[in-house]
């Protein structure tokens, strides 16, 4: 039914005159359920950036960008439904913001020849582009994040954390389990003790985990949480008076809505990040002028400048730049998903480009190549100030332990390749 309607509408548009097809960017968002607190700002940022491009620049390379939003509720079944319903509309790139849905889509997008960008989430070993031809996770992945946390702790302790005790509180899912392997390797290398404490979906029940932390008295607690789990964990940490400055979250556990419920007690909580925070960038003036003031902001329009809003905007920016690159390579404004993939693989982000986009020093400079779909993996650390209610960067973007991570990526992607009969190599 829907298909016929679309066909009819398309037919009518064709008959009416040579209309330019839009560049379709599906947004598999979640504005409902226990993970909505993170899904809403990300999706708003993603939508608003494309609105900005349409309003200010008239689209990408003269073609309007169209964002098709589809609610997944962080649920893999709905994610599949969203994927199937949007891929027929010429979807150029998928960014599901869910590791579970990513695992589902990796084989599907490869078969359907559509690129998948999982920025800072998804399957880490997708950084190996020789095996994962259609999956990209630049500019940083989970294992960079894990290593970034450990590097930061090394720095704070003068380069020696042997004998220290680190507890990992993680979401008991593919997402939360992802860093364990890297942290285990790093614990061997640096001699710290790792205790992993799983928290089951959705994460409201954490009393026993924090009781154990209270008993164990770890030197540091690292968190791999998402959604409502973050808020509960930070509250629980405050309840047992765990020193907040020794509590570090991954980038999915470090946004305003995560720390606000705990109030002043959350002061000093830290989180790693792969892009800058705050709204002190010229691009936000444009967003205010062309999007928010024009009444075109997505959602309630109250998320501008939040950590996850920035990340959504950054994801949209990388997608738009890849689309531009693809347009240049193939010499046509109306690109296909296959061209988009080429654009992503040839993407070059340097400081001059970021400056021109109004995002100086917002994210790292990097070049994507067929061998490396993972970017440089630079990790910074942010800290929450409860009084001024802001996140600020306390440690600049630094490289992670590529020696350990590279080996793990090699292993895991080789396992995937042999499971699925993929011949690694660059075409």
């Amino acid at each position: 039914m829907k298909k016929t309607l679309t066909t009819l509408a398309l037919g009518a548009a064709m008959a009416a005159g040579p209309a330019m097809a839009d560049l379709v960017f599906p947004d598999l968002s979640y504005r409902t359920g226990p993970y909505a607190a993170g899904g809403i700002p990300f999706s708003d940022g993603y939508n608003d950036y494309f609105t900005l491009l349409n309003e200010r620049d008239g689209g990408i390379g003269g073609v309007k960008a169209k964002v098709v939003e589809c609610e997944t509720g962080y649920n893999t079944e709905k994610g599949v439904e969203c994927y199937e319903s949007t891929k027929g509309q010429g979807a150029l790139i998928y960014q599901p913001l869910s590791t579970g849905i990513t695992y589902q889509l990796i084989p599907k997008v490869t078969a359907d020849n559509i690129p998948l960008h999982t920025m800072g989430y998804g399957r880490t070993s997708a950084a190996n582009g020789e095996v994962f031809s259609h999956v990209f996770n630049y500019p940083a992945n989970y294992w960079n994040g894990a290593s970034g946390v450990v590097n930061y702790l090394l720095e704070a302790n003068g380069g020696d954390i042997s004998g220290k005790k680190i507890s990992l509180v993680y979401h008991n899912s593919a997402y939360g389990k992802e860093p364990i392997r890297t942290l285990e390797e790093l614990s061997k290398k640096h001699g710290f003790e790792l205790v992993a404490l799983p928290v089951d979906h959705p994460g409201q029940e954490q009393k026993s985990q924090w009781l154990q932390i209270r008993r164990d008295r770890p030197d540091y607690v690292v968190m791999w949480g998402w959604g409502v789990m973050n808020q509960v964990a930070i509250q629980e940490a405050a309840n047992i008076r765990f020193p907040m400055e020794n509590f570090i979250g991954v980038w999915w556990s470090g946004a305003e809505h995560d720390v606000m419920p705990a109030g002043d007690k959350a002061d000093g909580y830290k989180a790693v990040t792969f892009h800058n925070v705050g709204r002190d960038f010229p691009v936000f003036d444009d967003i205010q002028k062309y999007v928010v003031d024009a009444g075109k902001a997505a959602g309630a329009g109250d998320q501008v400048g939040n950590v996850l809003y920035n990340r959504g905007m950054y994801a949209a920016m990388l997608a738009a730049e890849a689309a531009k690159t693809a347009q240049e390579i193939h010499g046509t404004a109306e690109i296909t998903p296959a061209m988009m993939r080429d654009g992503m693989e040839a993407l070059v982000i340097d400081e001059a480009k970021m400056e021109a986009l109004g995002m100086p020093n917002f994210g790292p400079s990097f070049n994507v190549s067929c061998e490396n779909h993972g970017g440089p993996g630079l990790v910074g650390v942010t800290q929450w100030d409860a009084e001024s209610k802001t996140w600020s960067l306390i440690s600049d973007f630094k490289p992670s332990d590529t020696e350990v991570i590279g080996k793990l990526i090699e292993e895991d992607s080789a396992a995937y390749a042999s499971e699925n009969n993929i011949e690694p190599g660059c075409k």
Partner: protein
Amino acid sequence: MFYREAGDFKVSYADDSQTFPIKFDRYRYYVVLAVAFGLIPFLINDYWANAILLPFLIYSIAAIGLNILVGYCGQVSLGTGGFMAVGAYACYKLMTAFPEVSMFIHVILAGGITAIVCVLFGLPSLRIKGFYLAVATLAAQFFLVWLFNRVPWFYNYSASGQINAPERDTFGIIITGPNAPAWATYLFCLIFLAVCALIARNLTRGTVGRTWMAIRDMDIAAEIIGVNPLKAKLTAFAVSGFFIGISGALFFAVYLGAVEVGEAFGIQKSFLVLFMVILGGLGSIFGSFAGAAFLVLLPVILKVVGVDLLNWPTDIVAHFQLVIVGALIIVFLIAEPHGMAQLWRVAKEKLRLWPFPH
């Protein structure tokens, strides 16, 4: 007029006890089969297969399985999600251990393994009933999910704890993995559904089904007239487990392709299938189909109407869906406790009398 026994002469006992005694019903059944097997495979595309038909077929199998346990035998179970997980993990282990064996055999074996597990967890039903049994099966749900999360052997020691269905075929046709054609996955599930429904229908019409229903209606009376409760309850658990295991295996291998046990087979799955059975109609095979179709189609229809036609925000539509499903469950419980199957039964009764009602 056209829906009645009159003029349809039965000349043998076999004719007299057939599944669909009314001619119109019989032909309708053949037409449904013909369309499902002969027409839809030629028209199907990825969207229809993955968003609508596969979930419908797979949930129907699960609903039939649960209906046998809850609707026919009266043993309340909240462990459906856990038992589906057993089917999925059994299928995964078999698929990876014996790649050259046909998918049909893997799925059937997965059903068999689930049947054994289900019987194990059904043993307490000999001592406890009603709510207490529901709690015992709830324990099964949580234990099984915990087990599959905890023991790396089940997910072949993969880093993420997820299981991914590799590409497997049957008779040279790819059934699982991203390259499987839509018609093949659809037909594969349809064959399982058709056979399961046929078995379930005939079991419930025969001796086994009658002992289940006797136990359901009053277990002490059933025991007095010579029904063995041990045998009746455990066969119900076994058959139910077999169907639920098949649906879990198909759910993982054919439909989703990658599964995370806590997310895909959590407690909400148990409730979803239970709602299908309650809304569709307890103790009715048709009800299982109706309930599954209803709960699979409703979100899709609401999405198409709300988001695509009316251009409402996606979150509003998603919230509306919760409100509507919740309201419908309450309405059904009050207005028609026997579910959609009862509506269908009443409609047929009316049709028989039409156009001259009493």
